[in-house]
């Protein structure tokens, strides 16, 4: 019985370590970039997803003169790879949602403990606000 338990524990540990592929990272100790951060509000409807992926920061910029670019930095809190889909919606000054010809849900896979940014550019200069939706695969 003891042997069975020990074997099971060893197999479980091996399985666990086999699946874990967390990412080690190195970057400049004092970052030179000065991003323009956006104060955000979050609505969590999937608590499980909320525990797996953290939103580290949201920053914005203007590209091509007048087009809003939003970058959201995500972090996989687990040591296992996680696949998500995300989608950016754009909102005009009058609160109307803008149609995006190349919008839609996109996939991202974050390795264990990986931090990565997803970004999008509003194709209309009318866009002043955004919504990022994230769902688990």
């Amino acid at each position, binding site marked *: 019985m003891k042997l069975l338990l020990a074997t099971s524990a060893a197999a479980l540990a091996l399985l666990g370590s086999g699946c874990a592929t967390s990412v080690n990272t190195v970057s400049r100790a004092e970052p030179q970039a000065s991003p323009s951060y956006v104060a955000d509000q979050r609505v969590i409807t999937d608590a499980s997803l909320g525990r797996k992926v953290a939103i580290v920061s949201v920053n914005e910029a203007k*590209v*091509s003169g007048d087009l809003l670019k939003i970058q959201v930095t995500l972090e996989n809190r687990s040591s296992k790879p996680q696949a998500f*889909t995300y989608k950016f919606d754009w909102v005009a000054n009058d609160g109307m949602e803008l149609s995006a*010809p*190349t919008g*839609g849900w*996109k996939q991202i896979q974050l390795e264990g403990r990986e931090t990565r940014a997803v970004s999008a*550019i509003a194709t*209309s200069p009318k866009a002043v606000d955004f919504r990022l939706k994230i769902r688990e695969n």
Partner: protein
Amino acid sequence: MNPKFTCTLAAAALALFVSGCASQNDAKYVDSQGPNTIVSLNSINIQDWNNAADKLVASLLESNVLERAPTLPAVMAVSRIRNNTQQQVDTDALTKKIRVALNKSGKIVTTTTLGPDGKVEDAVAADAGAMQAFMAGEKQKTTLPYYTLSGKLLEDRVKSGSTQQTTYTFQLSLTTVNDGLAVWEDETQITKQGRRSSVGW
């Protein structure tokens, strides 16, 4: 247990099972830009065109080269997009999305009366322009493009055991007509791996 109750329970379970199966197999509408579209290994899917166009448009807008045109919106003509994949695809699936996005951005308008090998997209507009100039006794005024968009689609297939991997590469170049220089170039790749097609990502 009461046999009547057991029968009713079994019938209900069977009905639920059958209706569940039916809803899985019956045709239904899905969001073209949603996460429940079919993913196939042997073809470029609707979401692949969408993702490729999205990445390439973002790259082009970020490059800020469109602002270099003397007037905005700049005129662009779509040149040849070569299809070097094994499939017969309509490259408009990519270029039209890019054109629409650039048009909405206010940076680009696309001419539909100029095309590769003289094949114009809007023949009526080209003829009407010529007719209008003829009736007015003038030379036809054609707005020449400042930019042209050209590109290529590539495909790479590899197999390991029963797992198949297909990579589609979408390459685009934006060239200024007056000097023939590619002022913006980029490519994006989409790789799909699996044993068979599936629904959803």
